[in-house]
């Protein structure tokens, strides 16, 4: 039971929030959402000393799981800050907005704290179903399209995963992930591995399972897109890490390497031509997924680099989306023209996140890439590192293009907007964290290396 408390906190406060919403107590509903997150974070901290396997092996609260859960709660909290004010402006008045976030976060936590396929699947479904609803909340055509597209393709990915589970069960006689069974190179198990990977690669938006990403990001409300780009990725990648034992098999390894190569090339090249900031962020998230997937090749060793990358990436993306949310739905990059004049804090923040996403020192984005690429290189994949490095040169171009529009292109100012203290708060916090992770990452790195 103990291991479930952080989850229960999220679910209980989600229900309380729904009850408040029933009586149209919007403020209270929102407050209850915040409380749920804080309470959950506190219990995650408390669980640190009780790292163990719970519920007969269904929940595995190891260091990875706990750290990832904490990330999920923190980023969901920041997404709440982005939504504060945005929701009213854009006309999302339902209290479910916050409830759905809480449930999705709960699903993601389930995903990262289990080594049992059925539980991972359950978590993935909780996360997904809440996500489908979230994507459609803006209720215009784009948003509806996003929701439906996400749901249909999401179900396909679930089918893959379930099929993988079935095949796995036929060989292992259990759904618990067992490294000895995984290492067995029987054709059925290889197929099981392919299916399981495909299901999760969809959530991580790795090529060729990335098709939904740009449309869903573009259509969803901006804070929701931020949530997808961060929390969903954390869930998917930790789950992928847990089944990365499959990669001892050369066929599966070749498959994931092929997917990485395609992802980093495709994501970065297509991003070059984007004119919509959210589509740009979608392709950027695809390319970052490609980089992060490289950590899977390292097996258990990859845990700490992956978690470090996810941490930095999360703050960078939430930060960028805080600016995007503050501009409401003015999403053409052309809308960012002269932003440095009309709203210099937002422009400076956005420029900072773009520079960090492009991987310039002394930001966290650089260190994340530094550790990831150097580990992958020393595992022998030097050619992959060279490819990754060259594709990130492309990313410099498209990230800096946003900066060019904000600072260097003269012209008519198109966007008028107000900004919200809460989103700005998330932005400043992200700036601080990204800088902190870029300049003084020592504590976190030691922590991750020792425990993960």
């Amino acid at each position, binding site marked *: 039971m103990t291991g479930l408390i952080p989850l229960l906190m999220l679910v209980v406060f989600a229900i309380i929030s729904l009850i408040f919403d029933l009586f149209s107590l919007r403020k209270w509903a929102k407050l209850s959402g915040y409380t749920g997150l804080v309470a959950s974070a506190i219990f995650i901290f408390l669980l640190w000393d009780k790292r163990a396997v719970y519920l007969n092996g269904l929940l595995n609260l190891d260091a990875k799981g706990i750290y990832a859960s904490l990330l999920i709660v923190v980023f969901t909290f920041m997404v709440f800050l982005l939504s504060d004010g945005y929701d009213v402006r854009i006309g999302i008045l339902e209290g479910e907005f916050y409830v759905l976030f809480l449930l999705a976060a709960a699903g993601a936590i389930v995903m990262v704290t289990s080594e049992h396929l059925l539980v991972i699947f359950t978590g993935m479904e909780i996360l997904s179903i809440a996500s489908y609803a979230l994507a459609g909340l803006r209720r215009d055509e784009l948003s509806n399209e996003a929701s439906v597209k996400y749901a249909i393709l999401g179900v396909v990915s679930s089918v893959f995963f379930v099929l993988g589970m079935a095949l796995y069960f036929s060989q292992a006689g259990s759904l618990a992930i067992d490294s000895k069974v995984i290492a067995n190179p029987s054709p059925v198990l290889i197929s099981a591995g392919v299916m399981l990977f495909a299901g999760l690669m969809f959530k991580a938006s790795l090529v060729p399972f990335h098709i939904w990403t740009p449309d869903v990001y573009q259509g969803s409300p901006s804070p929701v897109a931020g949530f997808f780009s961060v929390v969903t990725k954390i869930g998917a990648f930790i789950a992928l890490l847990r089944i990365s034992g499959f990669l001892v098999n050369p066929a599966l390894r070749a498959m994931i390497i092929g997917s990485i190569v395609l992802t980093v090339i495709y994501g970065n090249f297509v991003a070059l031509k984007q004119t919509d900031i959210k589509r740009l962020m979608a392709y950027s998230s695809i390319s970052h997924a490609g980089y992060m997937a490289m950590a899977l090749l390292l097996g258990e060793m990859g845990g700490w680099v992956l978690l470090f990358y996810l941490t930095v990436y999360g703050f960078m993306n939430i930060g960028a989306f805080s600016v995007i949310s503050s501009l409401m739905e003015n999403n053409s990059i052309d809308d960012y023209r002269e932003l440095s004049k009309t709203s210099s804090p937002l422009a400076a923040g956005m420029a900072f996140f773009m520079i960090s996403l492009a991987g310039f020192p002394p930001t966290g984005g650089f260190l994340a890439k530094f550790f990831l690429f150097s580990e992958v290189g020393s595992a022998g994949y030097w050619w992959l590192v060279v490819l990754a490095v060259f594709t990130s040169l492309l990313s410099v*171009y498209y990230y800096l293009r946003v900066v060019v529009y904000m600072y260097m292109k003269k012209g008519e100012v198109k966007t008028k907007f107000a900004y919200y203290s809460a989103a700005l708060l998330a932005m400043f916090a992200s700036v601080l964290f990204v800088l902190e992770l870029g300049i003084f990452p020592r504590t976190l790195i030691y922590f991750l290396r020792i425990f993960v």
Partner: protein
Amino acid sequence: MISAIVFVPLFVAILYVFIPGENKKFFKIGSLSTTILVFLASLWLFVKFNPANPLPQFVELKKWIGFGLNYRVGADGISLMLLILTTFLMPLAVASSWNYIKEREKEYYIMLLLLETGMLGVFVAQNLFLFYIFWEAMLIPMYFLIGIWGGEKRVYATVKFVLYTMLGSLLMLVGIFYLWKISPEHSLYFYDLYSLEISPSVQILLFAAFGLAFAIKVPLFPFHTWLPDAHTEAPTAGSVLLAGVLLKMGGYGFLRLAMPIFPEGFRAFFPYLIVLAVISIIYGAAMAFVQKDAKRLVAYSSVSHLGVVMLGIFILTLKAYTGGIYQMLNHGLSTGALFLLVGMIYERTHTREMEKLGGLARPLPVLAGFLIITVLSSIGLPGLNGFIGEFLVFIGTFEASKTVAAFAALGIILSAVYLLWMYQRVMQGKVKNADYMKLPDMNLREILIMVPIVILYLWMGLYPKFFISKFEKSAKFMLEITNKPQIARVIQGGGK
């Protein structure tokens, strides 16, 4: 002390963020006094420096990220001179922006100060990781300086500049990963790297990776195409620092990292590098000939002059090596001054087209005087600084190869021609535009910018020993490491 010099500009820049942008005077005066203060502090280092010791001095070592990624700074003779060149040019760059920059002063001075921290950091870093951080971080302020305050085609120029530089440095980054993994205890300390034993075939790859990064920065032909655009579009201060300091980083990178860490790799590329350096000298000069824009002409002259610097460093004789380093300082001064003067002319006439200018010596006698002495310094008139550097490089090259020296000398003759021709077209002849007769001559601020530079021309030309003695031991030491890698193994750890 070194850390203070490096990071004071950064702290001032952070402070600026919290000050409202209306206080324009404050930013100007604040930046000027900060940069002067930093310059004075670096003079103190110059005085305290012990020229008999070839190893880094004023060393500071702090645990930072761990795993060999430590914070280690220090300065040997070569670093020290480049450090002082940077701190010397900074106040001039700030002063030259005084009236030239009329919008977003706050951001402008923040970027200048950030740039100073980046540039100084590159020269004093003693850990490869730290070096790379400064090397890359410095791109960002330069990107904004060109992109926001530059000329017509600034966006094109600045993006090209960043992408070109990144292209080189990313391959270097892969090289750094490799070195980090193979070096014992993951040390990236320069003097530990010098003693690494790397197989020749790997050295060739790594030298190519590092060499490309530095060759783009120098820039050596054919990697120079970003430079004319960046130089022409950048605001005056940007051009001054680009020519005066940023280009030196390429040469510095070669002599500090690429050559001594991968001596075998260097040997494999040696003939090509010499050829590239000579081509740069002649090609830069030839291109300078046909330019119509005075600033572009100076930019191409930079390519040519840096060819001389690189020839001196590559040819591996002590005289040429010392001369190459000395020539870096000279080039920083005289090309920096050329950009300042062209900038001053532009501020008055709003054109840099030499066809439209002409006869400016009549309304602007003082400016003409400064221009001619700068031109003479740049073409290496005996008695001025340029002569010493070029002379040393040529004697050294002559010792090694007469053919190379002959070709390189050709470029020098050309440089005399095109620079004097530029002077003639701008300053002499008929005044093309009647309005130009009313132009105001240099004011006190502008004269004060130029006077210290001219003093240094004479000082460095007449008494070069004063400067050379500071770095000759270090130069000799670096050269020995490059020639015979085993020496480093004996002395290893001495620099701690």
